[in-house]
């Protein structure tokens, strides 16, 4: 699926009476990506996460256009099309097992329980998450295993647009290799955007890497 982003603007208003100023997190970002894997690099605070959250439909853009598969897409359509893996893997129900969490979020994405469980088991194997860890309560998992569950949640949707924000964070070497293979396979049929502060991993995941600086992505600009 072709993804074209033109002049994307996202401004976070300062809280009322705080005396602060608005934060212009995306300042006319342009991006062009097709089926395959595209890396997005940039310093802390450059706008990578805001870009991904806007493309996932979690945030509503304040300006610019997003065309997904040739159609202008608002936040609602983007939530249908995109699966997002956040940089922070703690957005799960801590009192539930990893498998129960995946079943729940699978249901919200339209997956029947058996299908969600089957996909989770398959993906767990790919990223090196043991079956026992799938059945473990989420708050008893290590940070690395939490990240694996977060990755499984995103991959299991099989969405045409996959947004992976710092997906290698906390993963061991074997899991990183498994994830790189998974990203490459997914990139055969979906548009995958990946961020990472590791140039090495980003280079291994994506042939093309775009750079974002102060909320701007120069058209065609590569790292």
């Amino acid at each position, binding site marked *: 699926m072709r993804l074209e982003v033109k002049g994307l603007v996202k401004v976070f208003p300062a809280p009322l009476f705080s005396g602060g100023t608005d934060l212009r997190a995306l300042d006319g970002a342009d991006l062009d990506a097709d089926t395959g894997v595209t890396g997005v690099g940039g310093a802390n605070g450059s706008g990578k996460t805001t870009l991904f959250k806007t493309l996932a439909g*979690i945030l509503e853009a304040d300006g610019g256009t997003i065309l997904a598969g040739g159609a202008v897409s608002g936040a609602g359509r983007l*939530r*249908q099309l995109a699966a997002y893996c956040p940089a922070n893997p703690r957005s799960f129900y801590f009192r*539930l097992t990893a498998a129960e969490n995946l079943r729940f979020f699978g249901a*919200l*994405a339209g997956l029947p329980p058996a299908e969600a469980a089957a996909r989770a088991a398959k993906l767990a194997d790919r990223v090196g998450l043991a079956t026992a860890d799938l059945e473990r309560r989420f708050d008893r998992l290590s940070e690395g295993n939490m990240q694996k569950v977060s990755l499984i949640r995103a991959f299991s949707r099989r969405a045409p647009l996959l947004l992976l924000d710092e997906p290698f964070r906390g993963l061991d070497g074997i899991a990183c290799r498994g994830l790189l293979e998974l990203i490459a396979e997914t990139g055969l049929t979906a548009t995958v955007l990946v961020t990472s502060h590791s140039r090495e991993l980003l280079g291994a995941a994506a042939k093309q890497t775009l750079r974002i600086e102060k909320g701007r992505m120069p058209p065609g600009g590569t790292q």
Partner: protein
Amino acid sequence: MSAAAVVAAFVRRDFLAERSYRLSFALGALATLANLAVFYFIGELFGDSLAPQLGTFGASYFAYVFTAMAFFGYIGTGAGSYAGRLRLEQTQGTLEATLSTPLGVPRLLAAMSAWNFLFATFELAVYALAGVLIFKLDLGAANWPAAALVFALAAACFAALGVLSSCFVVLFKRGNPLAWVLNNFEGLLGGVYFPVAVLPWWLASVSNLLPVTYAVRAFQLAVHKGAGLAEIKGDLLALAAFDLVLIPASVWLFGLAVRRARRAGTLGEY
């Protein structure tokens, strides 16, 4: 993705989470019984003679409070659970993840408090069993179809108030004036602990603006006096009018609140 599948997923999630806090579950049930016992002994102490306003309802003080508390406990679930659930999702960091899925606002609202309503139904059954078996309450005169209609109209109305209240949670996180009013004034002005006839005229006129007043009065009359639809027509119409205005308004405003949070980037904040 069917709405039923979404509701089932939320109920399962909340049941598993609640089950993991076993002591809290048991203490909650005990607190309900202890509450009832307090009003039972107040009723025993004073009898019916000191409460002539109860004559309208044909009930002793205990029977009156028992019915109102059971009823208000259930419909109050709608008023309180949406904001409570939403706040919980905010603080545990799952709200943004839940709202990043294709799930729309109406389905989220239908599913979000489903567990709370199921649990409230269980509590209602505990109330009813305790009332009949332990406190020997006589509900023989009740007009159950009329009571059920009051129940349905009131539950929908209070769920809408709960959704409205949760808009404040989406936008301001803490500080919820509607929940404050619901928590502090509905019991006082709505005739839950005593008939509104006890109130001075100026407070009684305020109570007439609250749906709980109509709901509690109609329910009491249907349960204790066996009142039919004709006798509680005014209260039913008032509740239906509240429903007609509050239900669409609350869903629309909740959608606006979520949209505003998406624009401001505060969906994941707490």
